[in-house]
């Protein structure tokens, strides 16, 4: 294997946090990024700009995971979890990237709540983590295949299943552990089984050693950068991202949540900022299309072809399960992602796809999280029943100001549908979780 691909001999990014002295982020030791599976499949090297984008995102992600945030009890009262982070990242075209530092800094602040100061230095030719000198055989990606981001979660699988009704696709994924890779492989195989069209998997792998911070708010950038870089490698200037509007906008469940405590990985503004960055740095318009943004998760599931049922059942939504490096780790059933999955599958009439077993992790309070979600729906209902629903929603949930890709009517319709789903299924969601826990105890 080319040592550059495995990151063994690559130069290092340097980073510093909260005023401390800079330290190296050793590629191959602290962090590895592998794109050889993608390069082999595409039979072409990633363009320099694409490799730069992905290596920047990977470096940011590694720093994000290596610098711990203070807990609420450790911070002064009334201060958010912001860190001050500096990074000097080697790239192939530093001048081009330096021009985009303001855009990149805004994006990183929006995603992570941190104050980022990013610099770029020159990378020695051929020394990047994604550089490859090898000769290529032949390309295995069908002509006209649409690049689609694929996480292995329910939304991306349902969206991809719908996409495959119309033509071939390329499923771009990024995995951080072998179990996640296995989930993504199994889901894609099941989707291909169920379709006349083909989805070609293009997988990147990243690994960060000795990480101390679990929040990973830059993860959205990593996934999107993988999508944009691969689209560029395919000579395409668009990327499809399937995420339901409720999960993408991800309004805070409680007003105690500040900024990125409610994740913004695929928020409409995140997509727009990444799209703007990709367009600005390449000098060509790039479009990130999110066709399910006006739909609830249950509505997105109803759009999926029934033949995709097996694939949807193999997906993983759990915050805990996907982050854990435990083979066959069961869904916790308590995190907000598990609960939204349960709510949407119940509302879509697909309860047969619910996991048969859950593993409740210590510290994850299912009742608190479920009540927080119902509390949010209660507040939404009060707004939506008023004579001026959009105004009341914006007043109650100021984050909606940032959702400019949907019209006011679409916003109101989206949340009305979501609130209605809760009204019809709250009892079922409550009792389902309790029944699962009881059955686990008996077992």
């Amino acid at each position, binding site marked *: 294997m080319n040592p550059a691909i495995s990151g063994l001999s690559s130069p290092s990014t340097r980073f510093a946090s909260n005023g401390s002295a800079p330290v190296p982020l050793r590629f191959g030791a602290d962090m590895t990024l592998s794109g050889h599976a993608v390069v082999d499949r595409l039979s072409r090297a990633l363009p320099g700009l694409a490799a730069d984008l992905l290596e920047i995102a990977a470096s940011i992600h590694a720093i994000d995971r290596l610098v711990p945030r203070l807990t*609420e009890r450790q911070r002064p*009262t*009334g201060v958010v979890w912001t860190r001050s982070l500096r990074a000097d990242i080697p790239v192939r075209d530093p001048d081009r990237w330096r021009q985009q530092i303001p855009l990149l800094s805004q994006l990183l602040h929006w995603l992570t709540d941190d104050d980022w100061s990013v610099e770029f230095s020159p990378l020695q030719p051929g020394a990047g983590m994604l550089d490859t000198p090898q000769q290529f055989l032949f390309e295995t990606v069908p002509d006209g295949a649409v690049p689609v981001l694929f996480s292995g979660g329910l939304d991306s699988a349902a969206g991809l299943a719908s996409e495959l009704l119309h033509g071939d696709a390329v499923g771009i994924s990024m995995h951080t552990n072998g179990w996640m890779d296995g989930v993504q492989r199994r889901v894609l195989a099941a989707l291909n089984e169920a379709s006349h069209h083909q989805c070609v998997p293009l997988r990147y792998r990243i690994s960060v050693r000795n990480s101390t911070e679990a929040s*990973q708010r830059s993860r959205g950038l990593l996934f999107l950068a993988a999508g944009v870089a691969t689209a560029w490698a395919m000579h395409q200037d668009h990327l499809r991202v399937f995420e339901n509007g409720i999960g993408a906008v991800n309004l805070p469940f409680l007003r105690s949540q500040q900024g990125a*405590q409610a994740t913004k990985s695929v928020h409409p503004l995140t997509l727009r900022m990444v799209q703007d960055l990709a367009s600005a740095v390449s000098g060509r318009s790039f479009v990130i299309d999110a066709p399910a943004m006006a739909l609830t998760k249950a509505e997105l599931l109803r759009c999926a072809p029934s033949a995709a049922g097996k694939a949807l059942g193999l997906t993983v939504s759990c915050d805990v399960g996907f982050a854990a490096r435990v083979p066959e780790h069961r869904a916790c059933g308590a*995190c907000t992602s598990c609960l939204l999955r349960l709510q949407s599958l119940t509302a879509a009439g697909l309860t047969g796809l619910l996991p048969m077993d859950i593993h409740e992790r210590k510290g994850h309070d299912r*009742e608190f999280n479920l*009540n927080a979600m119902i509390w949010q729906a209660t507040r939404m209902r009060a707004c939506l029943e008023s004579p001026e629903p959009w105004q009341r929603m914006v*007043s109650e949930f100021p984050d909606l*100001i940032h959702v400019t890709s949907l019209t006011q009517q679409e916003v109101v319709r989206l949340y009305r549908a979501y609130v209605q789903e809760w009204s019809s299924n709250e009892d079922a969601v409550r009792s389902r979780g309790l029944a699962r826990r009881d059955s686990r105890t008996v077992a």
Partner: protein
Amino acid sequence: MPDDDKLPRPLSARWRRVLNAFRAGESQEAIEHHVAKAAADTLRRTHGIPDLPALGTQMYLDAATGYGADSSSRRAMPTHIPTRLARQAVDAMSAVMKERLALTSPDTAALLLARRVVAEVVYAFGLDRMAPVLMGYGFDPAELHHRFESIAQSNPLGELAKRLLAHPDGTGLRAPGRRRLKLATADLMDVDIEEML
């Protein structure tokens, strides 16, 4: 894509007092006063919102000169939570009350903002953190929502907002005292005990 949302839920001693008041079935008026005290305590400990008067002026000017969502969405937000809440309130009020704000004076706009910010502090540090807990004790969410809205619009919090404008850095900020009925012993026989609490 999994989110791993963080839901801050610790309550300070003052806010735990409010939680206990709900659980003990204390009157709405009594709870409003507990909330005002807890909000004043939070604002003192977090050093208030020194920029509040300036933000009120900015909001008035936003309304008078026009507002664009893009300018706010790409701006760095402060790390100080009460100031962040105030900035979000300015953005939201400017977006949905533009015409009304343009017809007010800068002072009235500042007072409207102060009331809104005090309510946001109350929710962010207290009521929203305890709502899921109270629901766990059997409180109906719709009823709880109605009671919380009444608290946010109550006189003690309105008075606290005026005081915050006078002491925006929170120094010496105190909740208004609770007015108690002073009646002759004979008259007390005709007063409902609930009113006295």
